[in-house]
């Protein structure tokens, strides 16, 4: 282990788990009990039978802590596989956001213009509001929300990151 062991890094970790009662509590309890950071966490079943769920957790820490997080996740009984996408190479990270903007007049026009530029879709509209749906990296959603703030940003709902490695290699 290098002496530069105190440098922090972010890690996007994919975890395949048995889709059983309490499995998410185990993962979250592990992070809180051992004092690790959770920047975001998403979970949903991903196989045809619904028996396997995929958790994507974005965390940060020193190299030693991130190695520890992976090892601790891997020894949970219902965990099938742990993969550090950040370490393992090129990967895609996406987040879905639903963004409500409320306003009238020129602000509505401006909101639509910006949404177009960011490739956000209008999924709900009233005479005084829009709900935009957008997908992208967290930074893109952050930027969009920042632009919407002065023109009527009312509410944001975000999924947190989901991620997958580029190329033909699968995780299971």
């Amino acid at each position: 282990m290098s002496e530069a062991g105190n440098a922090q890094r972010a890690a996007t970790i994919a975890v395949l788990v048995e889709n059983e009662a309490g499995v998410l509590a185990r993962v979250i309890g592990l992070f809180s009990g051992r004092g690790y950071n959770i920047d975001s966490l998403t979970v949903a079943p991903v196989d045809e039978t619904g028996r396997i769920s995929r958790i994507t957790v974005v965390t940060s820490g020193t190299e030693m802590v991130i190695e520890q997080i992976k090892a601790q996740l891997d020894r949970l009984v219902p965990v099938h596989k742990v993969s550090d996408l950040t370490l393992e190479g090129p990967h895609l990270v996406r987040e879905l956001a639903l963004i409500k903007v409320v306003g009238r007049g020129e602000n509505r026009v401006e909101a639509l213009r910006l949404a177009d530029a960011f490739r956000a879709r209008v999924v709900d509209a009233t005479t005084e509001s829009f709900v935009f749906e957008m997908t992208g990296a967290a930074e893109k959603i952050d930027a969009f929300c920042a632009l919407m703030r002065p023109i009527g940003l009312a509410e944001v709902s975000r999924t947190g990151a989901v991620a997958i490695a580029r190329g033909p290699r699968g995780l299971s």
Partner: protein
Amino acid sequence: MSAATKPASTEAALTMSGAEVVLRALKDNGVEVIFGYPGGAVLPIYDALFQQNAIRHILVRHEQAAVHAAEGYARSTGKVGCVLVTSGPGATNAVTGLVDALMDSIPVVCLTGQVPTHLIGNDAFQEADTTGITRPATKHNYLVKKSGDLARVVHEAFYVAKSGRPGPVVIDLPKDILINKAPYTEPPIAAHRSYRPQTEPDAEQIRKAVRLLKAAKRPIVYAGGGVINAGPEASRLLTEFVRMTGFPCTNTLMGLGAFPSEDPHFVGMLGMHGTYEANLAMHGCDVMLNIGARFDDRVTGRLNAFAPNSKKIHADIDPSSINKNVPVDVAIVGDAGRVLAALIECWKTEDAPQDKHVLTAWWRQIDEWRTKDCLRYRQSGKIIKPQHAVKRLYEITKELGRETFITTEVGQHQMWAAQYFGFQKPNRWMTSGGLGTMGYGLPAAMGVQIAHPDALVIDIAGEASILMNIQEMGTLAQYRLPVKVFILNNEYMGMVRQWQELLHGGRYSESYSAALPDFVKLAESFHAKGIRVTDADDLDAGIREMIAYPGPVIADIAVAKDENCFPMIPSGAAHNEMILGEDQEGGVAGVTDEGKVLV
């Protein structure tokens, strides 16, 4: 497959209640004895227990003791210990025992009753969120909500408890699941879908380790409880490896007995109250081989000064133990026994020569450290030194030659037991290492005695710790378990007192054992024998009387009240900053504020 070869499958099995399925599954997993305490939610299991003879039930007096007893049973036999408690308070009382088993990697399966499934979440009488509470207290836990899952879950629980790094598993059983009919399937079940720990070490890592070890000038083998958990063969292989290489060997508190203490290669226990030679050998080594130990803070002292100029090899069955506290150079994931077998094999075939000459210089250095005689104490006069009491206990049991098992409570007496009682075989020493649970020793001794009815089982205790589970004297009486409780009575929570003396200006805040019971009368009221020894001249006779008595005994040994446990590495200090007994006057210099924060 004919019905005759598999009588318990499907059709026929639906004649069994859930409770009967549970007991059948326990039996098929080799359970002979279960430690428990009844209550409303588990009445169906108690009813089924009443109607069978395959499994013996031991009625404890508190659920915490049931788990410790199962731990004692497990640690002295290598089998999985089994516990049965009711819902709510039964389960919450068991939690301390479960965490104890988790910290010390002891295989235990604990069945807890639960309110019926339709009442879960309704704050019903004696309802607790047992799986929620025990999630961080166990290796894994289950709530059985379907009768069809019952048999599989029990089989799986035993697999999880004993595989990889062992640990406690809870199965929460709602009362309706126990009453309703349930199908039974025999073990073994299909391979676990997700939990398959690696036991076979990687050959390349083994080669790297052997190359480092062959070139070592100042090597040390540091072996822990993982060697004991890997079974007696692993201890035999450890002994073979150490003798073959000529290396010095130290054991952790949990590893005592993995290597024979009377072997000249043994340098004693290491860590906070380890020997001078073990700690200095750790500090000065150039290659360290850690097998089945976890670089616990009691062992390492200040991390940035831990074995500063060494290459470290760490073999552990749990990958999360590796590089957790101490970064290592060679990581080997595997069962301690397999690792040792592979190391021995590779040592024999690897060409690189071993320079025995440099080893001689290392041993000369170690022998010089040994001349400090760091465990020396002065027994003079009538007042019994606690060290002397343990030493005489060891010598007398050795002379008698009976199979002897030692359990302890937690505190000074525990450390003196570790320092002055020698262990030549594994599974003879049961102590609460990781969690440090006062009240562990008496129930653990019960479990050991159940497993080894003819052996001599001694709980080396302190007068404060023993009171934490003293109610178990009733269990000893009921089952005529001849456990000996050997109390080093200094009228203090001695380790608390020692820290207050050394680190808190001698302000003995709440550490005096006031209003102690008369232990002789206490023993007698529980149908046991009571002995009190106050004079050093009577010590041997007291020990012999205790051992000779065929039933349970409390031997209350009045010892020096202000004796401290040395050597000691104060919190936040390094191995080479150890304080020895002769330095004890005037307190400890050099404990930093940072050190005081540590426990």
